[in-house]
């Protein structure tokens, strides 16, 4: 029971991280290989604030998100104007920089040994509610003018500019939202495991998330979520050794790229609105109105 509950919680936290990546990669077509570093910032900052200053959990989380977004702005500012390859390369460098910074500042972060003693605040319920709220935000975002402009930018930057879309600004918006969501997932993670160390936030984590988004279907939020569930929970339940899990992932994804390039779900979205009408429940929707 303990095991299952922890698998579910980790999967939910992954879903939140992946929603950040979905907005950035799935909708806007940008790849951040330093996305996990923002998770690290969320985790370390909120953890350190609570442990070192005794600040209340929620306040620490909010401050951590704000700091992540500010750092995201500094990283994004020179890069969003340039061709999309730059954001992957720059965030990759950023990720390495953050990892080395975390390793070096032993007095604050515990260095390579990790940062421990974080109180356990994240419960299965909190993770579940957070994931649902994030899903709702993301599905509204997708159908908003912002989401449309993101897809337009992904599809054709030149045409997007010709339609009066300020592409640097849209890219920055998408990037900062994704940073905020991912750093929040970091805070949840830290307060669940009560211990974090720099090694888990490397570029491969970011790559894994991008793969999950892609695996489910680039444009589809439903697909991204299912992709995350399949690729997080399945290997966990099957108790694959970590290294084999990676190989299993990669082969699966290479097969998909070669034989079903639109991903598992393509552009399909779960018609939640219709399902709710079908059941005619008075309760509010659970998954947002995925169009």
């Amino acid at each position, binding site marked *: 029971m303990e095991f299952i509950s922890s698998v579910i919680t980790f999967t939910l936290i992954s879903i939140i991280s992946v929603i950040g990546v979905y907005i950035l*990669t799935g909708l806007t*077509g940008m*790849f951040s*290989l330093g996305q996990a570093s923002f998770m690290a910032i969320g985790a370390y900052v909120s953890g350190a604030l609570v442990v070192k200053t005794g600040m209340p959990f929620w306040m620490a989380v909010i401050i951590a998100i704000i700091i992540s977004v500010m750092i995201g702005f*500094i*990283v994004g*500012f*020179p*890069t969003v*104007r*340039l*061709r*999309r*390859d*730059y954001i*992957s*390369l*720059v965030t*990759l*460098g*950023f990720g*390495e*920089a953050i*990892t*080395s*910074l975390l*390793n*070096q500042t032993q007095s604050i972060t515990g260095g390579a040994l990790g940062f421990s003693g974080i109180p356990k605040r994240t419960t299965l319920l909190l993770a579940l509610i957070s994931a649902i709220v994030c899903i709702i935000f993301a599905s509204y975002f997708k159908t908003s003018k912002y989401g449309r402009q993101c897809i337009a930018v*992904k599809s054709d*930057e*030149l045409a997007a500019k010709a339609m009066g879309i300020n592409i640097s600004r849209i890219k920055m918006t998408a990037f900062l939202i994704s940073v905020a969501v991912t750093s929040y997932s970091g805070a949840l993670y830290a307060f669940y495991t009560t211990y974090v160390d720099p090694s888990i936030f*490397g*570029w*491969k984590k970011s*790559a*894994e998330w*991008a*793969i999950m988004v*892609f695996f489910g279907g*680039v444009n589809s939020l439903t697909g991204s979520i299912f992709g995350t569930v399949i690729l997080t929970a399945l290997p966990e339940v099957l108790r694959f050794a970590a*290294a*084999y899990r*990676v*190989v299993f*992932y*990669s*082969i699966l*994804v*290479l097969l998909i*790229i*070669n034989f079903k*390039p639109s991903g598992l779900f393509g552009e399909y979205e779960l018609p939640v609105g219709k399902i709710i009408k079908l059941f005619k429940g008075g309760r509010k929707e659970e998954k947002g109105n995925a169009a």
Partner: protein
Amino acid sequence: MSVQIIINGLALGAVYALIATGFSIIFNVLKFSNFSHGALMTLSAFIGYFVSVGTGLSLFPVILISMLAGGLIDLAGEFVAFRKLTIRNTSSIYYFVSSITLGTLFEGIVTIWVGPNFYNYPRFFKSMVVKFGSLIVSTSDLIMFITSFAILMILMFFIQKTRLGRALRAVSYDRDTASLMGINVYATIQMAFFISGCLAGLAGVFLGINYTLYPQLGNLVVKGFIASVIGGLGSIFGAVVGAILLGLMETLLINFIGSGYAPVFSFLIMLVFLLVRPRGIAGSNVQEKA
């Protein structure tokens, strides 16, 4: 300090230049950032390691074997990860996912193969240092610098002066027109991957000698990426200059502040460059095509 540090920086820069060049060749031909390059370095460096341990070969045969292995693996990688995308002419997003997946696969294979341990190449040189009068230079630095320099010169000559090099440039410039001119585009792309893989093998062995050999060695590829950004994405010349510059700056800064912060410096150097001169040293401007 001084001269020894500069030579140290040049040697490091030369290895970064190998990475950056290997990366740039693929970037030019297919217009995407090949994130599998790092893991390929690790994989071929390990192949070289096990060959040298098993056979006791000296450094240069090991380098050759690693280069060949890198080239061949990259050919296979092109086939499983990128060929269909090129045929379908899909957007760069797919190349990206494919390349990080391929990279993860390579690294996964290495981890399963060798475990999470650290390895050291056997000592290839009789003496650790070479003396030029009062000047003392580490042998490995000298060999790294000279070999990388020689290989890069050969490559430049190949790209600028030979028929195949011309084909490579033509395909980089405009794939469709090149194809109309009778150039075998797919063969040229394969050649680019082979060359890039060879460079990855060489860089991998050098990095393994300079540091130690471990499954995440490929993460150092980020230096090559940063060098390409500083140099200007898409320009091989710019990448080489950027790499040398990065190697020198890094070595100097490390000398003052300590090696742990090196990635922070490289990142900050890149950020400053992007703010001040986003087109990079070479000033090539690769905007997404109109």
